[in-house]
């Protein structure tokens, strides 16, 4: 088992960004030269072989996604590559780290992706609140342009790549890949109908790939070190390392790059230092706000896409939110549902109606006004918002913490009913 940390090892302890020169000194942009010498299809094949799965939450195999993009002289142009730096899932703070600490690594990854799908234009789609990240990415882009790594004939090759930073104006929906496309086109960020898939017709009707920041940051390393190396980084069948994080009342909340498949127990007990003194662990959202709660019994689950799913949740973004025994689970779910209800784009009925309803009921519970039929209503809402019932994945994501809370914390709901108040207040 290795403990390599390709994504973060070069970052400065103080958290400043690596300049272009510093980045090159640690081998930066080497992979682009390599990729430019390769046939685009071979780049895609290599990424497919590496087993890289998207780090934005859904875990879709990256190479396989690229393979749907039309390639060659007859393909529609320009094609687009977009780095999804919208990171707005509550509890998630991993992409910020990569953006602020090593923006060139992202740009390099984007260049690889652009090479593979023959994209001429790339955007970093950044949430507005990431002011520092925005500054650093802009700086890195400027450096890359002046070095001739972007623009016309990049690295002296025949290829052109324009890369722009787009700073958004809020809304969780902008992170959903088709909502993102609308946002980038200056429209309301409603999700789009599929088909057509963005790979075929995306931004401005042209083939487009949207990829999470962390996914992209992995690419230079895969190019440099090969598919087998990438697989070897992991403890499980899902390849690579993962940026794991923990927030909540643990001793040392933080973010760590660890082998994919690190167990929750390790994350909690070793890396986070366990619960704060006097508090007990009650549960965890393993991968951000839109994943199902896991509890004590799941602590030994290997946190990768497959195993977390088997345990009844999702790896999501790999950043966990820890619930302790002094925090009200009902209140926590209320907070989550309020977020989702507020961020619903308003397009499909289960989402805009169901989530606000759930939020109101949970609010009633917290005020001590909940009753048993309210529990039935909440259960109904979770099935109402199930995958396939809604237009996009926002509402099903919202249903996950709620349905699992109803399963694991039923007692707590009942206490709210019987005591006619929140026992933690």
């Amino acid at each position: 088992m290795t403990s390599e940390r390709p994504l973060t090892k070069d970052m400065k302890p103080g958290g400043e960004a690596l300049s272009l020169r510093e980045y090159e000194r640690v081998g930066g942009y080497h992979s682009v030269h390599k990729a430019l010498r390769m046939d685009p299809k071979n780049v895609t094949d290599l990424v497919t072989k590496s087993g890289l799965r998207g780090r934005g939450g859904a875990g879709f195999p990256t190479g396989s996604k690229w393979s749907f993009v039309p390639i060659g002289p007859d393909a529609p142009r320009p094609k687009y590559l977009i780095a999804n730096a919208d990171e707005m899932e509550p509890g998630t703070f991993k992409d910020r780290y990569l953006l602020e600490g090593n923006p060139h690594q992202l740009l390099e990854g984007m260049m690889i992706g652009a090479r593979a799908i023959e994209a001429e234009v790339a955007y970093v789609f950044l949430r507005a609140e990431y002011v520092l990240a925005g500054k650093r990415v802009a700086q890195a882009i400027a450096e890359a342009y002046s070095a001739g790594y972007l623009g016309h004939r990049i690295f002296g090759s025949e290829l052109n790549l324009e890369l722009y930073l787009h700073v958004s104006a809020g809304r969780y929906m902008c992170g959903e890949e088709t909502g993102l496309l609308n946002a980038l086109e200056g429209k309301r960020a409603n999700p789009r109908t599929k088909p057509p898939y963005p790979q075929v017709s995306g931004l401005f009707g042209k083939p487009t790939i949207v990829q999470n920041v962390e996914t992209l940051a992995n690419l230079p390393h895969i190019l440099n070190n090969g598919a087998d190396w990438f697989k070897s980084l992991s403890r499980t069948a899902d390849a690579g390392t993962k940026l794991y994080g923990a927030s909540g009342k643990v001793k040392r909340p933080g973010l760590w790059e660890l082998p994919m498949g690190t167990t929750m127990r390790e994350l909690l007990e070793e890396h986070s230092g366990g619960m704060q003194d006097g508090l007990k662990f009650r549960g965890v959202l393993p991968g951000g706000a839109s994943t199902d709660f896991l509890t004590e019994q799941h602590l030994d689950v290997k946190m990768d896409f497959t195993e977390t799913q088997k345990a009844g949740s999702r790896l999501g973004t790999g950043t966990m939110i820890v619930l302790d025994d002094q925090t009200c689970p009902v209140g926590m779910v209320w907070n989550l549902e309020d977020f989702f209800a507020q961020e619903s784009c308003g397009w499909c009925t289960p989402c805009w109606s169901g989530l606000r309803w759930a939020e109101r009921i949970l609010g009633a519970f917290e005020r001590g006004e909940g009753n048993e039929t309210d529990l039935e209503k909440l259960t109904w809402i979770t099935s109402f918002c199930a995958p396939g019932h809604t237009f996009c994945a926002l509402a099903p994501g919202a249903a996950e913490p709620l349905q699992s809370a109803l399963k694991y914390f039923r007692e707590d709901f009942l206490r709210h009913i019987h005591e006619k108040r929140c026992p933690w207040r």
Partner: protein
Amino acid sequence: MAIIYIDDKPHQADAKQNLLHACLSLGFNLPYFCWHPALGSVGACRQCAVKQFRTPDDKHGHLVMACMIPAVEGTRISIHDPEAVAFRAGIIEGMMQNHPHDCPVCDEGGECHLQDMTVMTGHNYRRYDFPKRTFRNQYLGPFVNHEMNRCIQCYRCVRFYREYAGGNDFNVFGIRNTAYFGRYQDGVLESEFAGNLDEVCPTGVFTDATHKHHYTRKWDLQFAPSVCVHCGLGCNISPGERYGTLRRIVNRYHGDINGYFLCDRGRHGSEFVNSDQRIRQARLRRNGQLQAVSKAEALEHIRQVLTSSSRVIGIGSPRASLEANFALRAAVGERNFFAGIFQRELRLLNRVLDVLRNGLAPAASLREMENSDAVLVLGEDVTNYAPRMALSLRQSVRQGPMAMADKLKIPHWLDHSVRELAQDSKGPLFIASIAATRLDDVASETYHAAPDELARLGFAVAHKLDDNAPAVSGLTLEQTALAERIAQALRSARQPLIVSGLSCHSTAVISAAANIAQALRRTGQPSRVTFTVPECNSVGLALLGGRPLEDAFAAVRNRAADTVIVLENDLYRRASVQDVDALLLGAKHVIVLDHLTNATSTKAELVLPAATFAESDGTLVNNEARAQRFFQTFVPQPDVQESWRWLRDAIIASGRQDFAAWENLDHVIASMAVEVPALAAASKAAPDATFRMSGAKVPRQPERYSGRTAMLANIDLSEPKPPDDPDSPLSFSMEGSPDQPPSPLIPFAWSPGWNSYQAWNKFQEEIAGPLRGGNPGVPLVEAAAQPQQEYVRDVPAPFQPGDGEWLIVPFYHIFGSEELSIHSHGVKQLSPGAYLAMNDKDAERARLRPEDRIEFTIAAISYQAALKVRADLPQGIAAIPAGIEPLQGIQLPDWSRIVRVA
């Protein structure tokens, strides 16, 4: 066709369609909101969920939205699956969270799609017990009322208004469960089709603001199948009446013409029926004053006049029915029948008929226009002249981009997918018109020039297509290049279309359009043509024949005639004051039949109260030469009767007893068929009065019609017998056959479980397809099997701007230019005042400034108006609004000097 399985039973479905479409076509009741037969699928409301099974062995299945799934071979779904049923009820429950449940005071109540769907899904009891969100409503203009609290966020309104109708002054604002549908700021909705929001919105957010002034529930309205009288397209309508007043107009689905939508003139232009200007009793001039007289007195007077006159002439009308015009002709004799329009217009109409008869290219219905993939509009401002056509042409530009969808195998009904694929790309639509039009935003190219130049461009296109077509000399480079691009687009289209018409009053323009059709045909490319015509029965009148209006003037001037009967025609709108005065004062006797007091009727010796379209039956012939029957919606006050009945009575009074045989409309139609073979087919426009379904008539009133026994209780406690209707197979009652009538006889759309307009689903052979048994109407013009091959060769010379003179042309306005609709409050509000528009450079050179009061002179009469300056108007051309007071009765185009009034 494909076999699909619905709850384990095999059914035939159209594989090119979606499952919702298939289920509805098969007669299943599957609820929906965001889907609309004309707007396609977007999957927003999630109401149409069904269970889909992957294989016959799949017992678990998963929910899908029927509107988003193609009905391909072997698809297995269940509508009755409990999970699907519960989910659908849940959708209603979600929508109802904020809905105010104000049905008793809501104008949509009783015809609300939301009510229907609520009942259909079985959602009864409210489980949501928190406060509802509330909104402030907006003023949206005279036609559309706004009540946002009722919104269920189905997004139909924005999709119709913005994506389908091309309006951009309306939108959705905000997000989540508080999305707001309206305008950025209060104000009149700019789209000429805004009124459709009333029917497009499944609940009471957008309702008919004019109906509000005298509101009646759908179930209490008496309806008839009818045809819009406000332009030449012949859109089908359902007028509704209560207590003797016309309450409103709604769309009556016609698969070839209006489909699901009307224009706002058609929907809101019929208030004239209730106007206080209505002539409701006969009036006879005594001691210089028109005084009300009884029917008998009126007829006695007619007898005296007709028996004492040396020669009686009749002036017909393009807004009166075929039967009324024919009756007039019968009363005065063919030789003495005048068409009521000038030679110029008759000639244009006959030119149009020639083209249609020749069979160069079949006339395109509006539906066919939507499917055209390359369009040339030559000379027309469609939105203002034949409004509903603009909506169809707007859809035509989507045909080109559909090829992209086909390439990716994306079905056409997957609306947003197709729109996103297409982005801004649009199929070719060339608009060559005198000035900017409201369709220019979707045009691939526009060209603004004088009518002669438009004709020359058309001739040039024909020549580009076929060398044998006459060449045009002296074209500019720009014109040549444009003609080439147009020719190229038409040549490479699957279904090219040429739109032309009467609005620029140029035979050359129509001939140019015909040459293009000819050239396409000769080069092996089948095309279609459509001509716009000015009035609801212009084509019928032209088919009936009759001499031009100027001959009538001459007949009186020369004392060749001493008595004039004017049928539903305000001559002062057509001819100059001098000419009409000379006619009306020169004749010994003038008898006028009309609905409203107007300049002509005030000069008459005898005025007869003629029933409007809402109070009479008859046949109108639209721009495609399609004869359509309209039926009486309600029985007017006793002295008001159909013009043909007045004329029949007059004939009998004059001693020709044989006309007593004209007892009902069918008798008139039958003798018309004998006398005018060109109109013989009109008898087939609808079943005759003897038609019965299961031995019964078709009821005009819904089964829930209420209060009948009490309606007249202030006058007579016993309920009067419903009036007879000798003229049609419809009854003035709720009693009658419960069966679905043949399409020309459908008074309104209603079906069990479907109280809203969405009930049209139940009347169609296939969703959005033809009505069962075919769409209403019969063609009166048969295209020749062997078209004659000649090109028109008289190409006009280039337009020469005058020296200190302008060619003055009329500009039509959807709101204001039409005679009857201007009596509607909202139409009047939106109509422009009198103006004269001129090119900005011309104005500068003439030292005229915007809003200057100017004067121009036509036929020795001077007119004044405020000056408007428009850069889109060609130099040398000036425009005045058509039909708007006081700029009426001016024969245009004509030349005049334009001077500032001191």
